[in-house]
């Protein structure tokens, strides 16, 4: 079923429309979470959905994340397709056992005889001046786990389409929503044929160096690339879109052209997704790389209080610094 044409929409609203379209398209789709009903979620991503689809399909749950995911698994076993909201990144951990031990492994445990089409929406990342636990980027902790898929859109059109695809997927998908981009507007082209969910996209072409990022850092990388251009550097930007699987082919193609790669994410660098990209691309492009793959990301420290987050978060300057260092090889 085609979505309504939407024009310029903020990311949060694009997801809202995507959820609405999914609820319309398939009566088995459910929305679950804390405050997703009347309130429409703390970011209003589910705004109006309970009003239009009823309490039976848009479900305010008790305050218990393990309970949310555990019952979503049971609902999926009964044939439903639950889309669960975790209110903030830092609150997903009470559900971690159900996600890692049950949700990720049940399809394999059953030798394929059950499917768990559960989507877990997690508004993630920093930059909104919030208190502790409201600004984390835990994606590596999920991407390491076989049986899960992890994606993160960087713009409204992807937010719309990737959510629809995630809900249609028969696998559990952790859907990381870049919360500080919720209010960024973009055109949602509801008639376009979307790219496959796990395909990376070259969002800016260049020849000197490649920047790879996903979610909130794509915008940062695009701005960095624009700034670098003024200094005469041609920077290619790849939006990974998916952290599990990672579309290494697209990155490889880019790096074979540019010879240099910087991976950027908000999450701590240590054991982060940049490590996986660096390790694998180095293996694939050993003779093409003119510099080691560099990583820009969070430090090995808890996400700092809001008044330090600007310093903590990778921004234009730190990305450009890494570009300089890579080009210096």
């Amino acid at each position, binding site marked *: 079923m085609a979505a309504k044409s939407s024009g310029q929409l903020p990311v949060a609203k694009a997801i809202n429309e995507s959820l609405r379209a999914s609820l319309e398209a398939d009566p088995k789709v459910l929305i679950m979470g804390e405050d997703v009903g009347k309130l429409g979620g703390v970011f209003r991503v589910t705004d109006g959905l309970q009003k239009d689809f009823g309490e039976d399909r848009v479900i305010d749950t008790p305050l218990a994340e393990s309970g949310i995911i555990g019952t979503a*698994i049971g609902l999926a076993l*009964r044939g439903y397709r639950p889309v669960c909201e975790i209110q903030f990144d830092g609150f997903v951990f009470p559900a971690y056992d159900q996600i890692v031990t049950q949700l990720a492994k049940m399809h394999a445990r059953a030798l394929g005889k059950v499917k768990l089409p559960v989507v877990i929406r997690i508004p993630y990342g920093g930059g909104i001046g919030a208190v502790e636990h409201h600004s984390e980027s835990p994606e590596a902790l999920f991407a390491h786990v076989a049986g899960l898929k992890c994606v993160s859109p960087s713009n409204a059109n992807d937010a719309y389409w990737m959510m629809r695809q995630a809900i249609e997927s028969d696998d559990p998908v952790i859907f990381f929503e870049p919360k500080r981009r919720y209010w960024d507007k973009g055109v949602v082209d509801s008639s376009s044929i979307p790219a496959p969910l796990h395909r990376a996209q070259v969002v800016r072409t260049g020849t000197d160096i490649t920047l790879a990022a996903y979610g909130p850092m794509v915008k940062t990388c695009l701005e960095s690339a624009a700034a670098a251009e003024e200094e005469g550097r041609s920077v290619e930007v790849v939006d990974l879109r998916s952290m599990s*699987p990672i579309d290494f082919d697209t990155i490889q193609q880019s790096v074979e052209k540019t010879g240099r790669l910087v991976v950027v994410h908000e999450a701590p660098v240590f054991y982060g997704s940049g490590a996986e990209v660096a390790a694998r691309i180095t293996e694939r492009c050993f003779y093409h790389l003119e510099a080691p793959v560099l990583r820009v990301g969070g430090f090995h420290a808890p996400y700092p209080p809001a008044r330090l987050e600007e310093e903590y978060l990778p921004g234009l300057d730190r990305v450009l610094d890494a570009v300089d260092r890579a080009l210096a090889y």
Partner: protein
Amino acid sequence: MTVESTAARGTSRSGGKRTAAAKPAAKKTAAKKAPARAKGASAPEQPELVQLLTPEGERVEHPEYSIDLSAEELRGLYRDMVLTRRFDAEATSLQRQGELGLWASLLGQEAAQIGSGRALRDDDYVFPTYREHGVAWCRGVDPSNLLGMFRGVNNGGWDPNSNNFHLYTIVIGSQALHATGYAMGITKDGADSAVIAYFGDGASSQGDVAEAFTFSAVYNAPVVFFCQNNQWAISEPTEKQSRVPIYQRAAGFGFPGVRVDGNDVLAVLAVTRAALEHARSGQGPTLVEAFTYRMGAHTTSDDPTRYRTDDERAAWEAKDPILRLRTYLEKEGLADEAFFAKLEKESEELGVSVREKIRTMPDPDTMAIFENVYADGHALIDEERAQFSEYLASFADADETAGKGH
């Protein structure tokens, strides 16, 4: 009779048609059973235990639960328990012979499992732990399916939907939430099926079980929580999990709890049936605590002599679930020599058949490692599968080259 045909009896309810339905697991029962105890140390007053058949094989009445079974139905329950025990013993010895890596015996818990298993309708759904071999039997699950994971050829692997019997769950307590979610789905579908979630006394401490109580109560989900309190969680006695009887937990979440003699198959059947009826009729969850005993080790890896006495075991032996029903059947003339002889033979055959099945159970194909990780595929799995195939092929090549070379 072969294993398959035995199992194929499926979920036909041996304790069936003639039973007078008990009153829904009554308000009163739970209400009066939830005294707050100010002192942790003192012994709890002996709570009421629903019993319909004493350890001595006497039929007794209970004010709230009753049952009236035909001789055939009673023999059916007896047969279920005997065959289940036999299957279990066979598995234990197969483990000793190295055919299984591990076995979790249900010895002593036959009445709890057969009584509850036979209370179910075909369209009800079961969420077991790793010890519900008797319930699996009632559901018609091929016993060799159960052995696969203990042998190490798979991690479960049967189709839960073919017998409405979910995969065994090893992580303690998790399945209580799955059961609750499934039950919520039943309500959404407007169906009148019910769900039963099994777990142990130890599991009652897990947060997931408490959250399942909360969700099921809030959504009034048609689920029966069936706790087999077998007195031990590996080496820890129930006092390490709770200082009051476990069934009392339910009242504080807003639904009834009842303790039943878990070694009395009639009482378990009656109580479970009532709880399922309660769920079906839109009245929400019930917690049934089946008070029973794990006669054997926790698993074949365990050594219970390190933590419990023979006396304790002996005391429980006197309450054996099979023995008491046999006494009753004999005393009342409900089963004759021929029945017992035939059952003995059937048991033997079951043992033989299980042994044969396990010994011919094929090892999984190496490449199964990469199968069923995702329903829709994953690029990395494809890559790793291809690389690993190539790697394995390199040995074949090497062998070949080596063969040619010499």
